């Protein structure tokens, strides 16, 4: 890949961060921290990895992306708007009555959204069903699911891990946005999940660990996932919660139900390069 492609990705990611802050400010609530941590992963998926566009969004052969950590939907909405699924005007309607952008993803209301996620653990299982369905139908498309690290507390995740490995779903890639924080606090203070890598390996998954903000490492991981046969792949992406907005980084309160106000807002807008709320 040429350097300019990485530059394009960096630009795309910067646009997503800007959109996340805009949406967050319009809504007055939302989950900025976990939306900012997965921006590079989502940028890669929508720009380079997936066969998914406004042209084929109803085609059975399309690739599927399931945001299992549905509270981070600001990043998904930002990417979908960037790719033309709806106008950025819709950002103003996030979490508002009558709007197309719900507080958590809704496939019936928002073009480009594949699943009604937000109840943790369910998106992962849904993605496994999509992958199994593709295999049964003899289709070559792939399924991607983005999980939160806190989401791994859910027992359903481990039911799904057993199922995915048993069914040899090598057309499925799950990514853990491992930003180390969950709703209330650091994972380590809630329910310890380490050793995460060993856990997924023991459950029969092909495991790759990367820096989730580094496009070269992201590219390498998804390339290796494509080459894998007989096993589903789990990418553990180390990330920073609130990435890109200095005072949000690694601060638990920016997990959810907050939006920057006053000087915080000015600072966030300046840091993401946003001149005004569109």
């Amino acid at each position: 890949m040429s350097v300019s492609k990485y530059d394009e990705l960096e630009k795309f990611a910067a646009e997503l961060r800007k959109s996340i802050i805009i949406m967050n400010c319009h809504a007055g609530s939302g989950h900025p921290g976990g939306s900012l941590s997965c921006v590079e992963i989502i940028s890669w998926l929508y720009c380079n990895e997936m066969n998914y566009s406004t042209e084929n969004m109803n085609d059975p052969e399309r690739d599927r992306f399931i945001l299992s950590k549905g509270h981070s939907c600001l990043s998904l909405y930002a990417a979908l708007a960037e790719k033309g699924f709806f106008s950025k005007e819709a950002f103003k309607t996030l979490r508002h009555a009558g709007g197309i952008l719900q507080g958590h993803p809704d496939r019936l209301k928002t073009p480009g959204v594949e699943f009604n996620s937000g109840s943790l653990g369910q998106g992962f299982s849904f993605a496994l069903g999509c992958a199994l369905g593709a295999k049964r139908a003899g289709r070559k498309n792939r399924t991607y699911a983005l999980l939160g690290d806190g989401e791994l507390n859910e027992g359903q995740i481990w039911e799904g891990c057993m199922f995915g490995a048993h069914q040899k779903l090598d057309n499925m890639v799950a990514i853990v946005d491992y930003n180390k924080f969950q709703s209330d606090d650091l994972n380590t203070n809630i329910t310890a999940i380490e050793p995460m890598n060993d856990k997924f390996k023991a459950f029969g998954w092909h495991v790759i660990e990367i820096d989730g903000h580094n496009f070269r490492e992201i590219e390498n991981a998804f390339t290796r996932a494509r080459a894998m046969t007989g096993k589903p792949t789990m990418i553990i992406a180390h990330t920073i919660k609130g990435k890109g907005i200095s005072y949000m980084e690694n601060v638990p309160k920016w997990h959810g139900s907050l939006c920057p106000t006053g000087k915080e807002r000015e600072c966030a807008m300046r840091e993401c390069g946003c001149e005004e709320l569109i």
Partner: protein
Amino acid sequence: MENMRDAFGKVLTELAAERDDFVVLDADVAGGTGTYHFREAYPDRFIQCGIAEQNMFSMAAGLAESGIIPIVTCYAVFASMRAIEQARNSIAYPEFNVKIAASHLGLDVGPDGATHQALEDIAIYRSIPKMSVVSPADPIELKAVMPYLLDNTGPLYLRTGRSPLPNVFDENTIFEHGKAQVLREGTDATIMAVGVMVHRALIAADVLAKEGISCRILNMSWLKPMDEAAVIKAAKETGAIVTCEDHNKYGGLGGAVMEIVCEGCPAPVERVAVNDIFGASGEPEDLAKEYGLMPDDIVKAVRKAVSRKL
């Protein structure tokens, strides 16, 4: 007299020969639900999900998204409680075409005891938007309902019992789906029954006829959408209603009928149901006696309802 689980397994197998648009999902209870018949005949269309109902339900939604109709099977207590949030959020809310087929209803489960008896499933499933609920009364109705379910898109909860049930219908019965079915006409009261209680209602009506009480009997297989017109018509024309179900008295058939009657045409309603307690181990017939679900109990309830007529 055929066992409902055998009837279920066999009808799945027969349908599979005619159409390839569905698969059967199991949570390690194929022996209990009767799907082992299907597994033997169509192993490639049988998906073993293990004892992991939550994953099975959400995963089924993913399969449905891929254009396959998943028939998710497990015991009613797990379908209606362990995996209910998955049924709501993964299946009903996004409107996926998943058929949830639950066996082992109510006290009819018998010796396994309270942890395996589902006395709450009607209340739970009928409160979920977009979800239909149907509970056939005998193997003939079960076989009739299955092709209809596959031909009509949308999330649905199918309740099947465990015990052998006497046939209420003959093989030539024509079923009008979504309608309460008049099994017998009557003028003094209407008995509305579901599932295992339908044949008991017929026995009770015979006893009451000898006393000079003429009962209309409605088979209420469709719990949601419920045939409201038939309920209101019964209230108007017979003036008294008795509901019969192997379910908690709260939130089930009785509760649903009371909602409609109170809104549409007030009339006395008596409920023959489990009186808000957990069951215990025992043979189904013994439990039905202990918890008040026998024909005698229906007879008493009808007498009371008639005496309360407005």
